[in-house]
């Protein structure tokens, strides 16, 4: 995984790390400065995105807001221009993977699914979906792995491998602008939603934070210099300036949980799949923005 080019440097040894920990902990006070999300429209190549949608019943606010509205002008601009958006490099790489034969079965994604612009249009807006075979919800990454294993004779992708991120980004990008909408009536989705909701409000870690501590109770405030969004899932995988790389949803969830100084659950574990179901549902109505650009 790529990191900021100069960030890996200064910290060496326990001393620095402990010092850092203290500083981080003491700095994790929410600033009382409230900044409104911007009142602007996001159009990508002339297609208007829905960045504000009526909140689902039960959520403690009227509107759900895309994280795009919380970013500075320069970051917003990067997403609005599909050429300037570095995430589009991964879309192009994903297209290449889609059309490349791989594995003993001699198949590419395109062998079965043809042109992704048609076959995948709008599909990712309805993920995670119930998977009857595994009796759990699966996201796009797991859906790709299922194809690789069952039809292509391949191993699942290594979590966060470049190819996994590129292909996921490419497939989700085929739903650009489509409103997020999950079918909770499928299989056992409702109970996974319940479980995800519990996890969302569960305080964990040495900092005793739940997802809701930052992204619900303090959304719109600042944590150090970060303008806290509602933590929506609609733009993932997202190009994050900090890593200068694509960041998957489960990578970010693990990062968030780690920052609360809690044990980090494994990617695609039951815990994070449940959270993905609930989190995605919270953003119902927002456009898929993959690849979004965030700080």
């Amino acid at each position, binding site marked *: 995984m790529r990191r900021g*080019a*100069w*960030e*890996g*440097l200064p910290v060496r040894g326990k001393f620095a790390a402990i010092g850092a920990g203290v500083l981080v902990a003491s700095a994790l006070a929410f600033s009382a400065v409230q900044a409104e999300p911007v009142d602007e429209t996001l159009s990508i190549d002339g297609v208007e995105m829905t960045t504000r949608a009526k909140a689902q019943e039960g959520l403690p606010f009227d509107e759900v807001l895309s994280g795009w509205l919380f970013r500075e002008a320069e970051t917003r601009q990067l997403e609005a221009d599909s*050429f300037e958006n*570095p995430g589009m*490099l991964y879309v*192009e790489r994903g297209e290449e993977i889609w059309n490349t034969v791989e594995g003993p079965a001699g198949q590419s994604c395109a062998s079965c699914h043809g042109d992704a612009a048609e076959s995948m249009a709008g599909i990712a807006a309805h993920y995670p979906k119930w998977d009857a075979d595994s009796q759990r919800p699966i996201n796009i990454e797991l859906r790709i792995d299922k194809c690789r294993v069952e039809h292509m004779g391949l191993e699942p992708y290594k979590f966060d491998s470049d190819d996994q991120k590129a292909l996921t980004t490419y497939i989700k990008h085929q739903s650009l602008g489509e409103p997020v909408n999950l079918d909770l009536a499928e299989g056992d989705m409702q109970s996974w939603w319940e479980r995800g909701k519990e996890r969302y409000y569960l305080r964990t870690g040495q900092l005793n934070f739940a997802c809701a501590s930052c992204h619900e109770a303090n959304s719109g405030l600042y944590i150090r210099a970060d303008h806290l969004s509602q933590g929506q899932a609609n733009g993932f995988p997202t190009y994050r300036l900090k890593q200068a790389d694509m960041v998957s949803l489960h990578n970010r969830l693990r990062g968030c949980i780690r920052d609360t100084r809690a044990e980090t659950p494994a990617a695609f574990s039951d815990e994070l799949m449940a959270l993905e179901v609930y989190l995605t549902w919270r953003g119902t109505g927002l456009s898929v923005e993959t690849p979004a650009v965030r700080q």
Partner: protein
Amino acid sequence: MATPRPRVKVPKTAAAGEVITIKTLISHDMESGQRKDSEGNTIPRKIINKFTCDFNGQTVFSCDIDPAISANPYFEFNAKVAESGTFKFTWVDDDGSVYEAEEKIEVK
């Protein structure tokens, strides 16, 4: 990503003498040579150190690049086109690799 991927955006057509805007992007880690790995060893520098844009064999714009340019380097600049022809874009890597792209423009 393993293999650097160039992307360029050039208008398809222009009027004679028009000043057009060109945008370029290439996937590259731009390893600065300033980072250390978990064992404390310096990760060697590996960046794109030179970018050039030619039109019909003549240089339009070039830049000499330091490690302070972000990963996936982006360059936006202008070109004055008098005739139809081909833009050629060249990125030179520290390891000697050269990445190229071409784009045609029709001057009406």
